[in-house]
């Protein structure tokens, strides 16, 4: 692995990365949360879009591995003075950094940057394209819930039925999960308003997966996990989207729907709009993995940074 641009990866590669994240996860139990593996390395978090949890999660991951982490945000950087992505990337590379974590509103920006800067690039979310570390942390948190925290190592998600609910068409979280979870053996169903589902392929699948417009139909099938996507108000300007009232009626995990799902894990990438994607009771229930997903995010990003930056000789896998 030279960069992490996509969640499309082989099953073995995904399991190895999740197992590495399990090793990193052990640091959560320690008084001294510091490992020396990336001592002397410098990582730049280049964030052209607002982000709190992803950026701070990458920052903590880098720091716990003893890397020096510098945050550059789009606002207040020379990007707001009109500098191109390429020039910004080359400028940062010229300062001698070892790795770049990039979040951009433009789909494909991390892949371009990877070609230009000649050092490892991690996609921390690009437009409506992908968010691979989010999919990895979702898989990590789900694997721990399904197999148990102490018995997850080496396991996949074979036969685990996951419903991803919401604005699938504009969600990079959904797209990355639609690639990663099936690679791990999970059976994924996409659920959302017709106008917010991706275009169907010739065989009727969407993103290669089964799609449904009725959440109630999918709930009746008792999925193992429900992944609720944030209603992205900032990405829907001018789009044909249901009103909040319509969304709640059709696709929100309300208290009433929650009662019909006694065994499903409730996942949400955050930030949550309580009352819109899910009720407060659902968000705070024992079935909710929301905070575990956040914790998993640090461990998964430590695993990614370690894989890309620890060795000068590149990865062994």
């Amino acid at each position, binding site marked *: 692995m030279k960069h992490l641009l996509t969640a499309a990866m082989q099953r073995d590669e995904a399991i190895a990365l999740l197992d590495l994240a399990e090793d990193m996860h052990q640091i959560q139990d320690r008084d001294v949360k510091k490992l020396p593996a990336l001592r002397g390395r410098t990582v730049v978090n280049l964030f052209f879009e607002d982000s709190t949890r992803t950026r701070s999660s990458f920052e903590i991951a880098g720091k716990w591995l003893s890397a020096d982490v510098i945050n550059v945000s789009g606002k207040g950087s020379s990007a707001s003075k009109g500098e191109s992505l390429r020039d910004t990337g080359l400028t940062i590379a010229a300062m001698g950094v070892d790795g770049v974590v990039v979040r951009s509103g433009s789909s494909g920006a991390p892949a371009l940057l990877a070609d230009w800067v000649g050092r490892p690039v991690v996609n921390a979310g690009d437009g409506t394209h992908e968010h691979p570390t989010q999919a990895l942390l979702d898989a990590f948190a789900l694997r721990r819930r399904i197999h148990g925290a102490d018995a997850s190592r080496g396991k996949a998600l074979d036969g685990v039925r996951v419903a991803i609910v919401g604005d699938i068409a504009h969600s990079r979280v959904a797209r990355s999960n639609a690639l990663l979870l099936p690679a791990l053996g999970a059976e994924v169903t996409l659920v959302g308003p017709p106008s917010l589902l991706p275009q169907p392929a010739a065989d009727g699948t969407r993103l290669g997966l089964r799609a449904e417009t009725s959440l109630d139909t999918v709930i009746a099938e008792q999925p193992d996990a429900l992944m609720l996507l944030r209603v992205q108000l900032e990405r829907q300007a001018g789009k044909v989207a249901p009103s909040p009232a319509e969304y709640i009626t059709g696709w929100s995990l309300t208290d009433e729907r929650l009662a019909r799902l006694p065994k499903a894990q409730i996942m949400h990438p955050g930030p949550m709009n309580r009352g819109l994607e899910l009720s407060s009771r659902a968000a705070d229930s024992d079935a909710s993995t929301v905070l575990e997903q956040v914790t998993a995010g640090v461990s998964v990003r430590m695993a990614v940074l370690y*894989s890309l930056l620890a*060795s000068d000789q590149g990865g062994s*896998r």
Partner: protein
Amino acid sequence: MTQSRTVLGPDEIARALTRIAHEILEANQGPQDLVLLGIPTRGVHLAERLAGRLSDITGEDFTARTGALDITMHRDDLRASPTRAPQPTRIPADGVDDKVVVLVDDVLYSGRTIRAALDALSDLGRPRAVRLAVLVDRGHRELPIRADSVGKNLPSARSEHVSILLDEVDGQDAVVIEGGAA
């Protein structure tokens, strides 16, 4: 010409471990506060074997006082080698603070593994003392480190390769030297 000779067989390994178990108890004047931490991969199995002997000798159960200490993240050659996958660290529930930690490994060579283990250990707590038990000491130290208990001192040339085979991993118990001048 490449040669291979077995320097320790199963019986000798068993006797060495029994002696090391007694040495650990003698040096500690009893079993109190002892914690065994094996360094993956084979050190973990040796630590478990030592725990079995210590349990037999003292009548106390050492299973819960035995763990594994992975040193991958603390190695000083991470950059120079392909990415290494760490292995699990398991620390006994009581932790290592104020304990007498016995590090257990198969071979003591440059001393760099033990240096890394001492760093890894200091992130986990502050033991009262740290001891080192190894099955084979083959010399060629590059750091000021020595073992408290040694199964066998095995003077070797740097060009030789010392393999420790353990039943749990390799299906047999043996210490084998290969290569170098005969």
